[in-house]
């Protein structure tokens, strides 16, 4: 994987992709098309090698070779529901695809429902936070007061954000104008934090590529100077 040739191809592709910052050019488009083609090609091979062959075909083969129980040959039957998916492409046979789609949607919905309950209920429970420092161990110490203020801020942010999304309340209602504005401010701060993190991720990607290129540059200098 890390042979000199592949590493240098990697360096060329990186430069070709980055060259679009100067101007759209043939090297950039070549790299773009090659990436798509290679991605699909590798995907097909890997899907066969890592999924279809070991989990499906190997069992059928073994059953026919009598190294595994004959019942494993029944795995061939999954081709039937598999082919039924493709009936979506035909108006005449579309109805054949509905049972298999219904089955998959039903299973996925059941698991998703359970997953969401297990995911969200603890979230609801964690919104119940102490606000009274006198009720905490050690009384109103500085740490406890800070903890309670943090919780208060959390609750204000939570309720004002929820209020912002209550579309049954008019936005020009005097009583709700300030809380709604606070909610909008909180949302904007959260979105700002998300955008900041997006910048961090993109920056990491750039740093990794620059480091990769600088290593190649060092190797090239060593080769030229004979060091």
């Amino acid at each position, binding site marked *: *994987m890390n042979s000199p040739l592949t590493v240098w191809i990697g360096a060329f592709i990186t430069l070709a992709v980055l060259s679009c*910052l*100067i101007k759209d050019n043939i090297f950039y488009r070549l790299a773009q098309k090659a990436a798509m083609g290679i991605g699909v090609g*590798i*995907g097909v091979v*890997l*899907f066969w090698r*890592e*999924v279809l062959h070991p*989990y499906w075909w190997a069992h059928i083969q073994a059953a026919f070779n009598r190294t595994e129980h004959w019942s494993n040959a029944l795995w061939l039957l999954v081709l039937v529901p598999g082919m039924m998916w493709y009936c979506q492409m035909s108006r005449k046979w579309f109805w054949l695809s509905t049972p298999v789609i219904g089955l*998959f949607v039903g*299973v*996925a919905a059941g*698991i*998703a429902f*359970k*997953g*969401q*309950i*297990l*995911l969200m209920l*603890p*979230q609801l*429970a*964690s919104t119940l936070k102490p606000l009274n420092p006198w009720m905490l161990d050690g009384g109103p110490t500085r740490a406890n007061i800070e903890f309670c203020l943090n919780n208060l801020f959390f609750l204000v942010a939570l309720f004002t954000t929820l209020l912002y999304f209550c579309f049954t309340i008019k936005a020009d209602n005097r009583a709700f104008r300030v809380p709604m504005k606070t909610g909008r401010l909180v949302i904007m701060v*959260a979105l700002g*934090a*998300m955008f900041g*993190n*997006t*910048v*961090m*991720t993109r*920056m*990491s*990607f*750039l*740093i*990794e*590529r*620059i*480091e990769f290129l*600088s290593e190649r540059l060092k190797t090239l200098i060593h080769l030229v100077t004979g060091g």
Partner: protein
Amino acid sequence: MTTAVLRTLSMLYHLNPRWLYLAVTVVLIVPLMVTIPMPATKDSRGPKGVYDMVGSCPTDKVVLIESSWDQGSKPECMSQLECLVNDLCTRKKRFVVFSTGVYAPTFANEVIKPIAQKAGYVYGTDWVNLGFIKPPADNMGVLIQSFFTDIHATRPVDLDGTALTNLPLMRSVRTSKDVHMVFAVTYCPWQEWISFGKGQFGVPVAFGSAAIMGPYYYVFVDSGQLCGLFAGNRGAYEYESLTGIRGMGSKMMMAFAFGLCFIIAAVVLGNIGFWASMRLRRMQ
């Protein structure tokens, strides 16, 4: 302010972005060449939670790592896996790795193997790579339920095709009861680990994700559903500060700090340029 000064400042607003690209490249190269020590917050809840959880792992249990990152998320996830494996090997904790990404097992091995060899870890006794496991119908919930009920039935062989019964470590690792904690590292870890891994089976879960996913997962740390979180390279850097083993996270973080300072300076200068440009237009 004179027109000449305003005109000079307004040039910042009309600057060709290619100069910025060149400048950011130069700014990022310098810290990659020269090592500059940077301070880190050691008490950050995310990495500290993982550190404490790893420390409490008993000898009869393993740390389960789901390493599903590949080339697309390597810049952030590689450093996270590296610092965790470094710590596991230093504190002599056994671990099992698997991936739900097709390309991921090779990338995981490239990070783990050198560290494990250096620490004198024996494959099959101290660590195992189960390779790629496909979630049925891309549903991770089903895979977690099946995996934690019977690991051997879900994945009977390791990455190289060796039967799990032939690997000494895997003989004692069969269900969720043999797993001390789960660490899922990829661009966007499956949230099913929280609902099924932690919610149903009660196994502590920690994530290593891209920084962009940090705000989404921090709420789960706050609610106690995640015992720890590495958000981007910062998470890896803070973990390295806790363990004292410097690696890729520290290297990336230095360049990162330089890059962010440059962006802040560019935003400030760009706004000054915009202001000058507007003022100039009004004067004309």
